[in-house]
């Protein structure tokens, strides 16, 4: 009986959490243009239509490029900050780290409009580059949160041993530190990629005339006849996200096992 009611509550909460994404494939395969019950029948038409929209393909390519670069840059910045926070003590550390993590709680519209105003003032034309600038800013805190646990679990004496045995700082990092935190880095890359691929608010403000996938989707939501295609696209997106996240979680756990730390559960 212990936890009986709580268990029922927890399970129904999971239903609430998964309701939207569980409905997605149902409507994606439904043979009807109206998104409502009752269902009409099974079709693959919406998926095949996806292959015939050039604007969509451009948006996908654009988003993938942005997401890959964002993941690389924000993970690199994340490594610097997480490593500095875990390894060194310096005055003002809490303040500096707090400021770097600020985009985590800041409303995205504030980040978006303030970047927009500055970029327009300097005269930088809006393009994929400006979207990347914004995405790196919001992804870095997530990368730091993931990498923090990797670097914090790292046993300092391993590095000191390598150092005492004559390795240089660089070779110590390459031979000892990097392999131990590698799973964390992969996990961070995957998370940053996923965030950037799905991010809409900042992309909406900072994208020029080369829309990212979410910005393209937003445009399509206005046309009722296009909704089934959007559902098909959403199904593919969600499937991809779930796959990437499962990989990220796998690497995160492996990283924790490798450094001998205790699993505190989940990202963040």
């Amino acid at each position: 009986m212990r936890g009986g009611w709580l268990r029922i509550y927890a399970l129904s909460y999971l239903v609430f959490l998964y309701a939207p994404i569980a409905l997605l494939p149902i409507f994606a395969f439904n043979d009807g243009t109206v998104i409502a019950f009752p269902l009409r029948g099974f079709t693959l038409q919406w998926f095949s239509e996806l292959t015939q929209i050039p604007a969509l393909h451009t948006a996908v390519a654009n988003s993938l490029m942005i997401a890959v670069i964002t993941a690389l840059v924000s993970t690199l910045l994340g490594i610097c900050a997480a490593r500095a926070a875990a390894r060194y003590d310096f005055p003002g550390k809490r303040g500096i780290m707090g400021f770097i993590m600020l985009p985590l709680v800041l409303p995205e519209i504030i980040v978006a409009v303030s970047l927009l105003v500055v970029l327009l003032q300097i005269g930088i034309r809006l393009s994929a580059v400006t979207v990347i600038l914004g995405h790196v800013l919001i992804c870095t805190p997530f990368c730091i949160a993931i990498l923090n646990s990797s670097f914090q679990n790292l046993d300092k004496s391993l590095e000191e041993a390598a150092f005492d045995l004559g390795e240089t700082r660089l070779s110590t990092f390459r031979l000892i530190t990097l392999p131990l935190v590698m799973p964390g880095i992969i996990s961070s890359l995957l998370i940053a990629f996923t965030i950037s691929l799905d991010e809409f608010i900042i992309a909406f403000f900072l994208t020029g005339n080369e829309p990212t996938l979410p910005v393209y989707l937003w445009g399509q939501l206005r046309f009722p006849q296009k909704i089934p295609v959007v559902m098909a696209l959403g199904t593919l997106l969600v499937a991809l996200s779930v796959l990437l996240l499962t990989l990220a979680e796998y690497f995160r756990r492996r990283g924790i096992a490798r450094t001998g730390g205790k699993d505190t559960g989940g990202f963040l």
Partner: protein
Amino acid sequence: MTLKERLGRLGRTEAANGYLLVSPTALYALLLLAVPLATILAFSFWTQNYLDIDTTLTLKNYQEAFGEPLYRQLMLRSLMISGAVTLATVLTAFPIAYFVSFHVPQSRKSLWIFLITIPFWTSYLIRVFLWKVILGYNGVLNATLQGAGLIDEPLTFILYNANAVVITLAHAFAPFAILPIFVALEKIDRSLLEASQDLGENRLTTFLRVTLPLAMPGVVAAVLIVFIPTIGDYVTPRLVGGPNGLMIANMIQTQFLKLNNAPLGAALAVIAMLLVGAISLIFVGLNRRFLRGPK
């Protein structure tokens, strides 16, 4: 090897190393966060005439932001909706965090946390849009309830109003509330709970007098991490809010992108942030006694 040589090889002092390593990230945040935020603040005191920015300092934007009833109404409604979302999210999240921390075996905990976070990482636009599908007049919820014979007419109070915004945002921010509370609950020394029960408290009073106060830092973190970002959401109000569910972020977006009045948009953004910041500080102040004590 002398100590001096070793220090030389280690390179400078520990603090210098730390600064050097953190500097790329800190510099990035400085240039792309601090400078833009300062610019927004400056903009809110300027005026704009089509594309020309007049940099004479003025309080005109703030007078307009506070004077115009529409802006006041939007601001107040945004705070109310954000507050309602925060209350709903944290209250429904607490039992989940409690369940995972206290009733799920250690080996299964990360699986549960993983399951809870997955929906959060999937396309935000798509999720919001599907809530529109679920809550709509011919939507999934109404169809189900009618099919089950529970209602005769479709419910209309659940789409295109503030309720829909609250439900959708509570869904979107659920993991943000669950995770901090879960972490706080995990830190609680279980022997304290045994001690409390040995000393004659029952399960309920143990929860109220031991577990809850110790979990408060997590609850406070959850409240802040839900309350502050929700004020800036404009996707959810636009898609499911209807005319009476629009929030201040929609107005900020309109000022910047449609009306070309960046200074007024900036002033509205600054006011929104100040209000949210002030409310958050008051909230943290009220909970100070829970936040003290050993880390």
